[in-house]
């Protein structure tokens, strides 16, 4: 059985991981899709553990830790990193769409068409990542 102590330890170690991901996000101009997804999952993970822990503890020191982490998520992630990621994805999708629309397919060889297909695949990935990120925004709005 998982004790409150186990959850507290997990909360601390997962918060540390999140702190690292937030530092990486702050230091980078252009995050990869993998880094974006990993960061959002970690935010959700830490938030869920924090919620669970709040229901099980009365210790002021633990509640203070949870509040500190919630503040970090709200101020550093929700208000800063998240909007930056969303804007970055939208701008990149717009640029890629424009570039791909302007290509003249009629003059392309088999090899060029197949290598271009990779760009379309990247675009599809970015679009579904944006959808995922937008879902997070809907979640924040309902909190």
């Amino acid at each position, binding site marked *: 059985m998982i004790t409150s102590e186990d959850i507290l330890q997990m909360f601390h170690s997962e918060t540390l991981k999140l702190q690292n991901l937030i530092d990486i996000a702050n230091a980078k101009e252009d995050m990869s899709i993998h880094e974006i997804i990993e960061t959002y999952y970690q935010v959700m993970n830490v938030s869920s553990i924090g919620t669970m822990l709040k229901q099980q503890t009365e210790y002021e020191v633990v509640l203070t830790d949870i509040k500190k982490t919630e503040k970090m998520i709200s101020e550093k992630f929700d208000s800063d990193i998240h909007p930056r990621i969303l804007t970055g994805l939208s701008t990149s999708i717009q640029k890629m*769409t424009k570039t791909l*629309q302007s290509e003249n397919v*009629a003059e392309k060889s*088999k090899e060029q*068409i*197949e290598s*271009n*297909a990779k760009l*379309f695949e990247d675009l599809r990935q970015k679009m579904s990542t944006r959808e995922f990120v937008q879902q997070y925004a809907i979640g924040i709005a309902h909190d």
Partner: protein
Amino acid sequence: MIEDLARNLVELKNEFAKSYEGKSQIQEIIPKSNSELFPIIDPHLESLHQFATKNPIYYNFFEKRIGSVDCIVYEGDINRFWLNSIQHTSSKAPFSPTWIMSGYIATLFAKELGYSEVVDIGSGDGRIAFCARILNMESCSIEIDETLVELQKLLSDKTDFHPYCSDAAELDYGSFDFKRPIFFIGGLAQMGGTALAEVALRKINSISHLKNNSGWVFAGTYSQKYAPDPKNKAGWGTFIEKNNLKAIRTVSLPTAWTFHEPEPTPYIFSQPI
């Protein structure tokens, strides 16, 4: 006989998918000639090949023996059509075609069931309507994306399958002289197909001589990617029941979107109860 043709095509596709090493986004095969497994008359086969060779979505083709059948493999790319189709707010499902051979077999079923006109709603490059025309059925191909309609016009110069650039929700179905039509709905139930079917069904039901006289074909899926419908029918069960239809036949056929999957696409043929 048509069931055998469908089964043989699915087996041929499975064989082909195992051995295909190309990198194209979409690919499909058409038997090169009439055979025991594919007893299709030469003029029909010739038309099916013509549709593929004239169609700019295919950029390469070559001969390949698959099992005991000599085939032509067509390799294509639909990315730019996808890019265009996602700009339409009313287009719920991006363009992804059924196989040309599947369109042919599905329309053979439609003809065997006694329908005289094929109306393909959300018709992509118009292949289902084209196949209906080569079977001497009247056909009409409705598509909202003007780039795809341009493509259909390019393909319909010899075999006119009447492409219409229109939103299926806005179309006046009463202006056509349909007698006993069957409507193919483009899009899986889970990908906006039910919304498209609902609007078409409502419009057809308001035309008295068509209400009980029309057939409906829905492309389904058993993929675990989608939540199953509680009434089954490959995602269409609830829609079919709610709209007083009954499924009369299901035929499974290869499509571009199931090429890498073990299960082909089930086409649910339905009619009013």
